[in-house]
């Protein structure tokens, strides 16, 4: 009936900045190696409770973060370690938090599902899908009142996009022309439910039409495309042009979490992983563009690996919160 493509906006593509691209590549690698480590730690019960690794979303999270200014605010999803890493959060404090240690970002009270790092402008992860959208709108209200020139990027999954908060939040942001970028990471799956069954829209991005805001549908495994798109949307927002909606398409390579073997997933999908692996893609781009050599990449890997290993070691050495202290601190208080 309607040609979806015509309803979408396409960001102006910027020439690749070598220095910046190298930085982005490094971050993508950091996220991947960080997550491979967290999965190991989960399987050896050093990381406890929940774990939702960003594998597959590295380029989306890194590219989006790069498109923002330092002072801008990010609401990550429950699968959002990549945002923390891209914002330069402390690997030590991240690992410690995932391990439930007192030295973690939130004294070991937030874990994977509720982490927050105000020092790098990252808001609290919410375990209730989609609940962060109106909260992001609220930060937009604050930016507007405070005339602080900030923008908020609100990430959410293709699954979370089914929640009514999507509608209420986009509507509010659009009538108030708030500086908010809605960033839907469509990794094809919401637990066992495929994106294709979850909506009849070809892409969430075309829903932007209903809120008179630009809608972008981008390849979320292409870091530069994500960067250009978020940058355009963020700058529009900063200039008073209001919100945008971006859908970044990625692939969730593994199960929903490390204990999910994803038996529901069609075998063919796994076979296409190479085509969607953000690390492989960024690597090829860096090599093709001669921004990095194979040797550079190996060296990078070594450096990052060491940094992560140190963070793990540090985290393991930290203390768990003492039960008695915790009890004394909270009892009778709430």
């Amino acid at each position, binding site marked *: 009936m309607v040609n979806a493509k015509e309803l979408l906006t396409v960001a102006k593509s910027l020439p690749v900045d070598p220095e910046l691209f190298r930085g982005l590549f490094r971050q993508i690698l950091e996220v991947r190696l960080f997550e491979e480590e967290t999965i190991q730690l989960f399987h050896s019960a050093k990381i406890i409770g929940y774990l939702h690794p960003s594998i597959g979303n590295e380029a989306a999270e890194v590219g989006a973060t790069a498109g923002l200014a330092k002072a801008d605010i990010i609401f990550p999803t429950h699968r959002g370690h990549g945002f923390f890493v891209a914002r330069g959060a402390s690997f030590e404090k991240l690992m410690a938090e995932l391990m439930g240690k007192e030295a973690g970002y939130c004294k070991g009270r937030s874990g994977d599902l509720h982490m927050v790092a105000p020092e790098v402008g990252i808001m609290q992860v919410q375990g209730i899908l989609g609940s962060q959208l109106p909260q992001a709108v609220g930060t937009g209200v*604050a930016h507007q009142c405070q005339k602080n020139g900030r923008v908020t990027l609100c990430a959410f999954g293709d699954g979370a996009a089914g929640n009514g908060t999507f509608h209420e939040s986009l509507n509010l942001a659009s009538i108030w022309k708030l500086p908010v970028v809605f960033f839907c990471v469509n990794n094809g799956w919401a637990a066992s439910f495929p994106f294709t069954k979850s909506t009849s829209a070809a892409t969430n991005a075309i829903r932007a039409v209903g809120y008179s805001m630009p809608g972008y549908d981008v390849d979320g495994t292409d870091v530069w495309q994500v960067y250009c798109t978020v940058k355009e949307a963020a700058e529009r927002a900063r200039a008073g042009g209001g919100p945008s909606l971006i859908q970044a398409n990625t692939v969730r390579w593994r199960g929903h979490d490390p204990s999910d073997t994803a038996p529901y997933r069609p075998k063919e999908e796994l076979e296409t992983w190479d085509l969607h692996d953000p690390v492989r893609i960024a690597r090829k781009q860096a090599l093709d563009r001669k921004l990095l050599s194979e040797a550079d990449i190996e060296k990078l890997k070594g450096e990052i690996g060491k940094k992560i290993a140190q963070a793990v070691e540090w985290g393991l050495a930290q203390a768990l919160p003492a039960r008695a202290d915790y009890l004394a601190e909270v009892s009778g208080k709430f």
Partner: protein
Amino acid sequence: MRQLQYNEALNEALIEEMTRDEKVILIGEDVGAYGGVFKVSKGLLERFGPERIRDTPICESAIIGTATGAALMGMRPVAEISFIDFILLAMDQIGNHVAKIMQIAPGLLELPMVIRTEGGVGGGIGCQHSQSLEALFAHLPGLKIVMPSTPYDAKGLLKTAIRDNTPVMCIENKKLYALKGPVPEEEYFVPIGKADVKREGKDITIIATSFMVHEALKAAEALEKDGISAEVVDPRTLVPLDVDTLVASVKKTARALVVHEAVERCGIGAEISAVLNEKAYDYLDGPVLRHAGLNVSLPQNWHLEPVCIPSADSIREKVKSILG
């Protein structure tokens, strides 16, 4: 002393706090030009402009979520949900977020926000506009809850709530907005967590909330003719509950009746009864009893309302049956 209506007192609290601190903003349906369904935000749009007085579409969940986000960025939002019944649409934002955000990020985040809403039966407007749902929020740790019963308390508690750095729910009552009472011209605050003995007595403690405070006072008046001296205590704050004041009163009277409009089952009366049994069992000469709303969904029928909630008469009867 100057007499103000309850809604005027709340309006004054908002004006004072918004004048003092430009971080205070108001978000809700019909709060702008219309001045709020119960006229609590009358004149505020003209005074503070549309950036601070934000009329919203009908989206209760987003109203609370928006206030939350704004608070996280250092604003001090007051969100209005005009009927507490609608708040069920925002229950996730309140229960899973507003209540919890600070606790799971200890020391990292502040959430200085107020949720103003109202409850109560009156005027025949039915089961989706007459509930008293305060107990739901009392069961979600992380929310302070105030329920002012007089213009004085309304202004003083709302001002305190706005200055508090943690989330506070201010639950008003539709039958109270037009009530007049003394409100000083000079600035004052009512502390959160402090009950108020609204009438002294020695034979029984009637613990009543919100509009029921006035019915209890009328009942106490009438009970005097029956030779019964009833003390009326208004907790004013449900969380944190001022257990000391309640226990002190019961120590004196040895009997207690809890009265509220909310349905009885799992209402705040259950909590007060349980707490008094735990803390004042030895001073009691009989069980703490409850006199509360019927466990029913209110019909949209003015004529049947008196069947569903306590009144001065029914409180008097109940007290007589206890002491008789």
